């Protein structure tokens, strides 16, 4: 039987978290945003950059570098003994956290900063933006047919609708719930309330996905600081503990997925819950990867918050909204907070840390005890789920 991860459970904690501004930030490079986020997160942890001996980052589309983590260390004049860039698309953030936790447990580093930024909104030329679209998918057996990024996710939505009777209005309900959270978050990029009618009457992008079923395109950066649970307890009285982590990987290309309506979020979640010794019912909130509304639908089911096929009804129940039984994407998500590309889920992570510190202001989930965060990369290809908690026991 696979190792359930008891060596990692509760042994690592988050002691720093910071975001830059998000949205449209012309004239600021990804490196500048990444450096700002890293320094702010180190400051939030009450540490100096010389206390940090591990650094993880990711590549940026607007400023492609061969060795982005080393470049960030150089920019900040940091000299870590553990340094690596992770590339797993939208799943990058939590794959990096899983690695960082392992590095702390095994002694590769004592204090690790994970910092990521990109300028998808202001930093890409038109040709680069087109390139991002055209290089998703299998170059020989998918790309020639001209699928856009929304088209891949539309295939998932259409299959879910056909199999389970899910409706466009139910998908729209996900976008509306994220926007309701964003309305309570002064940092979110989109803060005007929207209705289901607004979503389903917005421009069709790839049937059945409308413009408001699609996430934002943003600039922004974010960073967190991790260390051992012991050290964390000395440094602050509200560390946030990593209780569970799990991954699942089934394919890269959507045409090779085993299922269009069940993803490896299922395995990722099962592994994370098993390590944590907790289940979906124990979660005070969930931050679910929402590049397009159908991903949230599938993830709600795969991560055990409702039965397979009942995601639409679960959305209808209002569970995802502020004050609901399972608030989802309490910062507004990729749909309404920001989506600067690979770093997108960093903002779901910093938000979860603030929720579990009880410092999330107007959008604070009452009595937040445990939270699940999930991200996926590729086209529902590589999934990582983390269980975070106020409680290290």
């Amino acid at each position, binding site marked *: 039987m696979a190792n359930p991860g008891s060596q990692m459970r509760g042994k690592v904690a988050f002691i720093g978290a910071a975001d830059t501004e998000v949205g449209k930030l012309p004239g600021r490079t990804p490196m500048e945003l990444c450096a700002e986020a890293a320094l702010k997160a180190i400051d939030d942890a009450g540490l100096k950059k010389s206390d940090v001996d591990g650094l993880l980052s990711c590549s940026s589309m607007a400023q492609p570098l061969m060795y982005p983590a080393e470049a960030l260390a150089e920019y900040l004049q940091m000299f870590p003994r553990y340094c690596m860039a992770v590339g797993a698309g939208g799943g990058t953030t939590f794959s990096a956290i899983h690695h960082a936790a392992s590095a702390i447990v095994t002694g590769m580093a004592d204090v690790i900063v994970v910092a990521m930024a990109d300028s998808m909104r202001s930093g890409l030329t038109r040709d680069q933006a087109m390139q991002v679209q055209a290089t998703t998918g299998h170059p020989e*057996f998918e790309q020639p047919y001209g699928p856009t990024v929304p088209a891949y996710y539309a295939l998932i939505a259409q299959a879910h609708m*056909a199999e389970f009777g899910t409706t466009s209005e139910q998908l729209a309900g996900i976008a509306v719930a994220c926007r309701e959270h964003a309305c309570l978050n002064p940092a979110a990029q989109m803060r005007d309330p929207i209705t289901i009618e607004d979503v389903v009457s917005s421009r069709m992008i*790839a*049937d*059945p996905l409308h413009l408001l079923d699609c996430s934002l395109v943003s600039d922004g950066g974010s960073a967190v600081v991790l260390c051992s649970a012991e050290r964390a307890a000395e440094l602050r009285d509200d560390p946030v503990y990593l209780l569970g982590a799990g991954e699942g990987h089934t394919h890269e290309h959507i045409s*090779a997925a085993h299922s269009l309506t069940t993803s490896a979020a299922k395995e990722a979640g099962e592994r994370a819950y098993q390590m944590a010794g907790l289940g979906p019912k124990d979660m005070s909130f969930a931050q679910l990867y929402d590049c397009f509304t159908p991903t949230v639908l599938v993830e709600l089911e795969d991560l055990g918050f409702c039965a397979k096929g009942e995601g639409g009804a679960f959305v209808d129940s209002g569970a995802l909204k502020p004050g609901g039984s399972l608030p989802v994407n309490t910062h507004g998500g990729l749909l309404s907070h920001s989506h600067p590309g690979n770093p997108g889920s960093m903002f779901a992570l910093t938000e979860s840390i603030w929720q579990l510190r009880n410092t999330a202001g107007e959008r604070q989930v009452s009595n937040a005890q445990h939270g699940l965060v999930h991200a996926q990369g590729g086209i529902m290809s590589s999934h990582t789920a983390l269980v975070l908690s106020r409680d290290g026991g």
Partner: protein
Amino acid sequence: MNKLLPPETEVSRPFWDACKQGELQLQQCQSCDRLQFYPRAICSHCGGEGLLWRPVSGRGKLASYTIVQRGISRAYEAPYYVVLVDLEEGVRMMSSLVECEPGEAEVGAKVEVLFQDWGEGHVLPVFKLRDE
């Protein structure tokens, strides 16, 4: 401006050559008899290296579909279908659905292959709805 063209490899060339002859062919493993798509140098099931090319029916069903409303480049005139087809022989492939108006396709619909010039001598398999 050209459409994106498939970068053929030594392994995949028989697939594309068959398309030019108006035939859909898949690799079949001599060790375990399974068909596979896309073409690979080994059988992804058993690792067998003996792979033969076998003509298949070209008939299947839509596993899913979407209509792209804004094309990926000027070479792709929107709206156009992007579909996933489950062939009768048990493999899935991405393709286009042609000769089909918006609103006519549905998941599970029966389709059959035809072949389209894609430019610069390339011929791609696409699908159309199949009448009973």
